[in-house]
């Protein structure tokens, strides 16, 4: 199946916002938008669901806290209790005040790193990954909106996009293997 897309390039973020809203209200489907910087409110305008990555971070933090507690309980209380400067080591809770710094650090360590790794995996970012922005200028000062053109009259869609203020419009025929 050939997926036909139209790439409309805008030179201004406010213009892009307006175009996105008009395109959606005209019931065209925006398959992707590439911008050089975060445009405030664009995700909402395109209709993306809010990201859940902050929730994962919270869960990873809980994991880190548990790891810290389990590790220090095993090492300092269960496996090899020692009298260090007279600090009580009979139970975990008695010794816990001395463990708080590391409990905190490991919580942050897990929450931060695992969240970022999740972000990189979900957004497919890693070394040697090839960039997929269709136009080089979208990392500089241009904004690209990709609209599905299947089942639409391409000429009309083009005219419509031109009216939304697009400065360049190009038709992309993508042969997809299925």
């Amino acid at each position, binding site marked *: 199946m050939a997926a036909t897309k139209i790439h409309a390039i805008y*030179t201004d973020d406010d213009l892009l916002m307006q175009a996105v809203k008009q395109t959606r209200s005209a019931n065209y489907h925006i398959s992707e938008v590439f911008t050089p910087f*975060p445009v405030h409110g664009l995700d909402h305008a395109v209709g993306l669901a809010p990201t859940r990555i902050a929730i994962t971070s919270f869960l990873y933090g809980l994991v880190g806290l548990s790891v810290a507690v389990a590790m220090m309980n095993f090492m300092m209380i269960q496996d090899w209790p020692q009298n260090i400067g007279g600090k009580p080591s009979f139970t975990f809770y008695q010794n816990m005040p001395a463990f708080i710094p590391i409990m905190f650090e490991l919580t942050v360590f897990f929450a931060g790193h695992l969240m970022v790794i999740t972000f990189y995996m979900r957004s497919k970012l890693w070394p040697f990954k090839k960039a997929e922005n269709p136009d080089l200028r979208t990392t500089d000062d241009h904004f690209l909106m990709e609209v599905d053109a299947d089942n639409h009259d391409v000429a009309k869609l083009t005219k419509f996009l031109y009216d939304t203020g697009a400065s360049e419009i190009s038709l992309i025929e993508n042969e997809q293997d299925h």
Partner: protein
Amino acid sequence: MSSHYEAPIREPLVLGEKSYHDISVDVGAPVLGKANKSWWIVFTIALIAFLWGLGCIIYTVSTGIGVWGLNKTIGWAWDITNFVWWVGIGHAGTLISAVLLLFRQKWRMAVNRSAEAMTIFAVVQAGLFPIIHMGRPWLAYWVLPIPNQFGSLWVNFNSPLLWDVFAISTYLSISLVFWWTGLLPDFAMIRDRTKSPFQKKIYGILSFGWSGRVKDWQRFEEVSLVLAGLATPLVLSVHTIVSFDFATSVVPGWHSTIFPPYFVAGAIFSGFAMVQTLLIIMRKVSNLESYITVLHIEYMNKVILLTGGIVTVAYITEYFIGWYSGVPYENYTYLSFGAATGPYWWAFWALIICNLIVPLSLWVKKLRRNIRWTFFVALVINIGMWFERFDIIVVDLSKDRLTSSWTMFQPTFVDIGTFIGTIGFFFVLFLLYARTFPVIAQAEVKTILKSSGESFKRLRAEHGDDHSHIQTVEEYPADAGPAANVEGKHFDSVFDDSNEEDSENNEVDFELHRGKIDNLLSSIGTFNPEVEKQDDLKKISGVGPVMEQKLHQLGIFTFEQVSRMTDREYDLLDEIISEFPGRAKRDDWAGQALTLKNNN
């Protein structure tokens, strides 16, 4: 859009008439250009210092830490002083990028990248000292909680020194990840702008294939916010834990409950001083004065004033409590009458003058906004904060409880060499960074351009604050959805017949518009191929190959001609070339052409 409003009494954060593209060009210039001579000179000096330090470290490790000036009384001296000094410097970066992000301080955007770089490089230097101090650095992995070969004797989680291991490594790694995530879009910008295939490859790898999808940006912003939320308590915890190294001991002068907040304030104080030192030079060398403005310097000076004030209060408190306790021993601690008049009087007064007195000058607005004076004060604070740690460690230890063991500390050339070496290493890293990394978070700066940029401000001034500077395009009558886009319902044909031309055969109707064309050329000037060179009009955004061809047919070949266009000429142009009405005016061709002409 009214959301871009910035109060006119606020000083702009971006100076001059910048466009988004100008920001890319300015930030990319140091990376894409060639290094100048002064860069090479400074780099060579830093490299020599680094190599000297490396020699001292190798000498220390191969011989033993007896090569340092330590003695029985003073078992910690320059090594831990330098460690705490570097860790402290490493606090400003995360403070700027995390705490100021949570407080929505937009001025952080121009300075956070370099401040974070400085943080990471400073923490690297800091980490060297405990490792060298181990004496057997190849056994450094013993600080990790792994069972050793003598049985399961674990590391001591009660020890603040082990807390340091966890705090510093967490801080270093989280700062690195925070920094790198923010760098991805900027590396991508360099990747897409560079002409050299080698750079394209390198920055392609570094940018992790960042494409700038809207979903990526959504996650990016959330990740930045959460990381900032995590890094804020983290940065406070790190120097708190460093201060525990001293505060949990029983040495008078060290055993102090105000150490954690006082160390954190001192760390931010010294960190901002180092940021000032580096950025004042960098904004000049890399031509970034439009982004790192006097306003930024003043804001940082205000942070220095605040944290310096906290440090001052802490010093006075320490001095007062020591005196008030009435314990004679307290008269030997680093903030006491005994210290001020004893053998280490010079270290005491260096601390007081550098950290208390000189920064007071920043209360004067003129001095706070004076770049030279700021640079001087920043250097003085860097020195003062080194003396603070030296005083805490060496002065407190030099007079212990046994008067017969009182002594002074004499650094050897190895102590000095190692310290100088880390400064060299720090500058080697920073100079390499300044040449290869986008030193300003350009993607973030672009988000504040519309509120701060001069051209956008002028537009608002002309048209009112809630005026949209984009021209409203005519709404396409497709409320009923694409199904309504049926020919004959809203329009007769897709394009007007007159527009149905391909670019190959793209004639302007000369006969019809003869008068108008003459009129147009008379006001913008004609092109003389004998003496003038034709410009690439496609560089003007909004001018494609078709439009260029048409302009050529009209006799418009140079930026000079386009730059003379005013509203009258735009209207004439629209009448002659009818299919792009309003386009020239909306894109401000004349303004663009003027810039391009001047850049040629």
